[in-house]
């Protein structure tokens, strides 16, 4: 790897740590929307907020090397485009998304 690539990789790793609170906040909104969908009480406002957060995660995660996270977030974005997202699938995808950005023990 070139010096510039090394430097970029190191800066990205630092930035990934720095943006953890933002990622967690976005995942929490998706968790909340998923719970509401399971309870049959997902409002239009929360669905749109969750979709917007899935969109942002889809656009960002791959930059840090989390390509699987981008794919799952895209699927969530599409699912949340439907009026009544299927609750079980919604919950599965949120779980997959969280796992995709969680370091393996």
């Amino acid at each position: 790897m070139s010096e510039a690539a090394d430097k970029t990789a190191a800066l990205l790793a630092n930035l990934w740590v720095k943006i953890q609170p933002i990622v967690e906040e976005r995942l929490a909104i998706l968790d909340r929307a998923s719970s509401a969908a399971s309870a049959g009480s997902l409002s239009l406002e929360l669905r749109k907020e969750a979709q917007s957060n899935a969109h942002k995660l889809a656009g960002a995660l791959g930059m840090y090397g989390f390509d699987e996270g981008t794919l799952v977030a895209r699927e969530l974005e599409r699912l949340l485009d439907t009026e009544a997202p299927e609750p079980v699938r919604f919950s599965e995808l949120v779980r997959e998304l969280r796992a995709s950005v969680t370091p393996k023990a």
Partner: protein
Amino acid sequence: MRRILIIDDEDDIREVAALSLEATAGWEILAAHSGLEGIRAAAQERPDAILMDVMMPGMDGPTTFRQMQQNPDIARIPVLLLTAKVQGVDQRRFADLGVAGVLFKPFDPMTLAQEISHALGWKD
């Protein structure tokens, strides 16, 4: 040295793009977090190119681009739209606006400068 204006409401995207272009290409990066701020920055700084997000609260990327086209001082600065939309219909809609190109999120920070140079026909 190339000077690029990045317009995006998301702090982390601006930051990744900036550090990527500075570290891998040595370009100077200017940043704005909204369309309105971007128009002002473009008029004041006259960058070599603008990299702009499509979906922004308030004035979105396409609207900002159309407003830039009304200002003769900045209308000729090439604009690349940055989008997380992957559907072909969106890509065609953006290309039809007359922008210099469309790049996709998530971008690869290691190759973003090459993608921009390629889209704009820059040889250096």
